[in-house]
């Protein structure tokens, strides 16, 4: 076997390992029903903040805990505990993506992406879209 063949094999093996590794490290987008079907497993859930329900953030008790209600794209609702300080302008968000798992009938999120309408929407003549930000 020539050395170039050995190198080719190693490269192919590393490439395949990287591909498989990437796919196994990935999470998946699910709706709340699916997340509740496998409690404890990490998922991403997309939805909106239910502005009618209270957003509870008591920094005096814990500066890194925010509670709110998520409505997923199927319309299912669920109480969320997010291990982050309440993001700026959270109430204005129009869409959120949570990374986390279901624990005791709640969704415990460790990470959140948030989309806020960043442009004027008043008046029908000038519309615009929002931008995503990662909640730190």
């Amino acid at each position, binding site marked *: 076997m020539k050395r170039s063949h050995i*190198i080719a094999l190693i490269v192919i093996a590393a*490439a395949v390992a990287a591909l498989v590794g990437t796919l196994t490290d990935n999470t998946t987008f699910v709706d709340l029903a699916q997340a509740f079907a496998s409690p404890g497993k990490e998922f991403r859930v997309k939805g909106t903040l239910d502005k009618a329900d209270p957003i509870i953030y008591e920094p005096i008790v814990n500066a890194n805990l925010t509670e709110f209600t998520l409505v997923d794209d199927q319309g299912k609702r669920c109480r969320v505990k997010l291990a982050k300080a309440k993001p700026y*302008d959270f109430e204005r968000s129009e869409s959120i993506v949570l990374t986390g798992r279901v624990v005791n009938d709640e969704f415990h999120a460790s990470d959140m992406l948030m989309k806020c309408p960043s442009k004027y929407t008043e008046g029908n003549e000038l519309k615009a879209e929002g931008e995503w930000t990662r909640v730190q």
Partner: protein
Amino acid sequence: MTYLGEHTWASTLGHFLTSLSFAGALLATAAFALGTARPDAGWTRLGRLGFRAHATAVLGIVVLLFIMLFNHWFEFDYVWKHSNREMPMRYILSCFWEGQEGSFLLWTFWHMVIGLVLIRKAGEWEAPVLAVVSLVQVFLATMVLGVFVGDVRIGSSPFMLIRELPENLGLPWTGLEDYLTRIPQFADGRGLNPLLQNYWMVIHPPTLFLGFATTLVPFAYAIAGLWTKRMREWMAPALPWTFFGVMVLGTGILMGGAWAYEALSFGGFWAWDPVENASLVPWLTLVGAGHLMMVNKRKETSLFTTMLLTLTTFLLVLYSTFLTRSGVLGDTSVHSFTGEGMLPGLLLFMLVFVAMSTTAMLTRLSDRRYYALLCVALLVIGVGLQVQVAAILLFTLCSLVMLWVAYRTGPWHAAEEEKLASREFWLFIGSLVLLLSAAQITFSTSVPVFNLLLEPFTSRLGGLAEQWNSDWLRNVAGAKLAPPADAKAHYVKWQVPFAFIIAMLVAVGQYLRWKDSDMQKFRRDLLRAVVVAALLTALGVWLLQYKLVELDLIALFFATVFAAAANVDYLIKVLKGKWDHAGASVAHVGFALVLLGALISTSRQQEISRNLTQRVSGPVMDLRHLNEQFDNNTDVLLYKGDTVRLGEHYVTYVGRRADGVNLHYRTDYMKAEPRHYSSGDTVRIRSSLFRAKEAHTASVDFLLDQANYWEPLENYSRRDLWHSPHWSATRPGTKAFTLEPFVQLNPRFGNVPEPSTRHWLHRDLYTHVRYAKLDAADSTDHMPERTFEKQIGDTIVTPTSVVVLDSLMVVKDARTDSMLGSAFHVRMVRLRVRDLYDAERWFEARPVVIYRGTEPVAGKGFEIPELRAKYDLATADPETGKVGLHISDGEFLVLQAIVFPGINILWIGCVLLALGTFMAVRQRLTSKPSRG
């Protein structure tokens, strides 16, 4: 109808110029291509004419867009969306490239400049190289064309009037001739996102895009070489451009990192965001390509890989563009563009160049014909039958097969294999590792693309998933793959081994000789660097407390220090300080330091705001009781006036001040100094009291001092306990510095926190405000109140206290009459307040409210400083016992503070990397005056 105040001529001129730029590029492509096939001065002249027309048009577009932005012509969509009147003029540059169209223009502009340079300098390579450059310009010109072919809009023009936008056509206001003055929205633009209003946004995009643009040159030369069957000759003129690209693109990427670190609250300089990755990947392959070109100058070897890396680099730039601008990243990236119908155009752009590269690699004419036929067939099938995804997958497969054919049939193979101890062999290995590293990042970043490609097959896969009952397959079938939950951990896991190999190769590379090396000499030469690196690693491991389980990090630490040491040694011993040839060594030292700085600062970043000690009014709720995976208390809560230990300092939150749209939060830092206790001092340890037996300086732990210096107190009152301070090893000393992290208040774009960082030589302290009182007008020392509607006898529980509404009194006597007048009376509620965390600690509060008849007119709150709470009475009804009560906490802010050690190593590395590459490029240019 003529509209009043509209600059219609600018719109007309703009559309004309975009068309001219397209037509000029098209003419240049055709003429240069024909000139390549049949060398003839006439074709070259025509090509130059076309390209110069294109260049003039691009320059005209740029100038016109600036004029529109400077003069605030808000009837233009681009101007309205990206600028406004309040914005400082110096940020007009940023407005120019904030949007999709403007950044395409920036890219086009750099290609145009490079094209003009190549016309002057490329000599015999001019025709084929300019043909490729012009073809790229044709595609880029379509991106800003903004014309309709039937119902399909091609590109998006920055010269569109708002009233001409498809969504506005036919709306009533477009019929008003004075709509610009009549409709208030046109008075001012939406403005540049304030987050982007800093100098980084002025310098980062042009640098990055110049870097991207430069990758086109080696690509064009490689295609030209394959086209004209000069397989190696193209590398000599392409090489300086390649390393110029390495320098500029590298600088651009690191500027992005510096921006994120200095001015954004991302909590670091690199977040493995898809957009960041998309700029890093072409740099990695470009570095690989450049090094292999140097090999090829000496020896005929690795030709196929050199071609592959050179072509791949530019294709990856196109792929990055596709990822970040087509909208496919959607909700996985923080800063991607929204797409707006750019997907088909960008896709075609990319696929055409993939097809072109594959065709060029095929050396047999018949293969080229088959492949071209296949591509056309797939295009027709894909578009005609609306099976785009299948067509793209088939196209990819065909291209890969053809690449294999090209590899088997082409003139790539050297007569003999490289020796194991030769420089070229290890440069080849290094390039392969760079390619693998790039591939891994690309895979992981492409998850949204996989979803798109999987979508047509979901039902088929779904059936398989049920058959095999595989959850993983079910997720794949659902086409709902998402990026890894912990992106940082994922990329670090894969990239640390790659970085290790690369750093080791950077260390030994220059000590290996071309063709074959004397291994004894090789070992002798490297001995000093190995010893130095080992010592420095030992020191680093000790100082930074790396543990054995972090062996990968220790290995990378060693490799980077070794790389730096070996290259410094090479500079001294081999080059003997001859700076002319030192470029490579300096750049290698820089690269090693970038890796080392990144390794130290990210692996040993310390969130010192992590605060698990008891707070003033009781224990902090532990998040881990809720969920083991929850990161506990990364932020610290600071009451105004309070002094809290933060790492090696004490910090006091002094107060807020407004400065324009920014609210600054002043935090003073004091050095932590050893605490001296005098004889007789009492301190509190949990709920016991101790008295100092003699004067002493506190050690690090109370337990160490207890036996010698402290005696427990047997009899003490709760009051003594409350009034005794907690024991602490240190006390705040003299003020060291002030940091003012701020929040940009912006009702339009949202409030944005911006960090404030203290820099030292060996580390940085980075802080930003996570949560605070955002009311600039309210100068009181309290947070926004909580409102309660309660009944006398009710109990309220707040995060700090238990409040019992004890009784309500109405006071109307001679005294209130004389002070307030007879129309007024006073109502008072007596509150019994208890510390939530201490059942024995009671207070009393008596807020009052003044009534005029049945109307409350004013009130006087009651403050309990011990609990940092203020009680205000809004209403009190003696008939029903109903009470409206406001309770507000003392003002505080929530702060995150991170220490990044060794981050200056990274910045120094950046400078050396850029400087070294510059030196190398300069040396190449000056030592060979006639290139090509």
